[in-house]
């Protein structure tokens, strides 16, 4: 099981703050693509991914138990 946290417009688009996905292992890139297609998420090309609170790269591998967050361009400050 992988937990995916959603923020900002992505949270509004899905209507949920998190998803639980029955996945054992997936790359960051593949997860982004799957989510984009399944949920029709917008602006995913500028959205980053954090795994366990660290920014991750496309080829990084996500494993069961990891907490993933989709991070659209930030606008704090």
């Amino acid at each position: 099981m992988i937990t995916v946290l959603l923020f900002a417009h992505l949270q509004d688009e899905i209507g949920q703050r998190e998803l639980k996905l029955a996945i054992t292992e997936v790359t960051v890139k593949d997860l982004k693509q799957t989510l984009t297609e399944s949920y029709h998420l917008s602006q995913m090309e500028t959205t980053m991914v954090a795994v366990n609170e660290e920014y991750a790269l496309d080829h990084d591998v996500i494993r069961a138990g990891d907490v993933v967050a989709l991070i659209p361009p930030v606008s704090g400050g």
Partner: protein
Amino acid sequence: MKEKLFEITSEPIKVDQLIKKVESRNAGAMTTFIGTVREWTKGKRTLYLEYQAYIPMAEKMLKTIGDEIQRKWPDTKIAITHRIGRLDISDIAVCIAVSSPHRKAAYEANEYAIERIKQIVPIWKKEHWENGETWIGDQLENVAYPTGKPKMEGDNE
């Protein structure tokens, strides 16, 4: 009482408390940056803002910025608090306090901190205008990150 130098809060920010966190007998200069909610932006009127954060990661990234600053300006002390939730006009969204033996580093480290916050800290702002609302995307007008993540200090470029 253990006080947090890098904090996300839903309470109003008190500037004096941040200044206290960085006070030092070796400081000759302290700077604060206070980001507030502005009413007018390019002719559009803001009614209020809503900030959302990925709290644990946001605090971790603020701490990362603090570490970067310690390396660049070794004698400084820094504290950062960012508020989330609904903020009205003139409310304080973020406060950065830096102390340093000398003033140049206090200004430079402070400005560095706000620039980095806008790059790497997972906090998002929703503008509620007179006629609608939007999540604000990248205010830095960056294009997609070429490496797939924002530049972290120590990255090979």
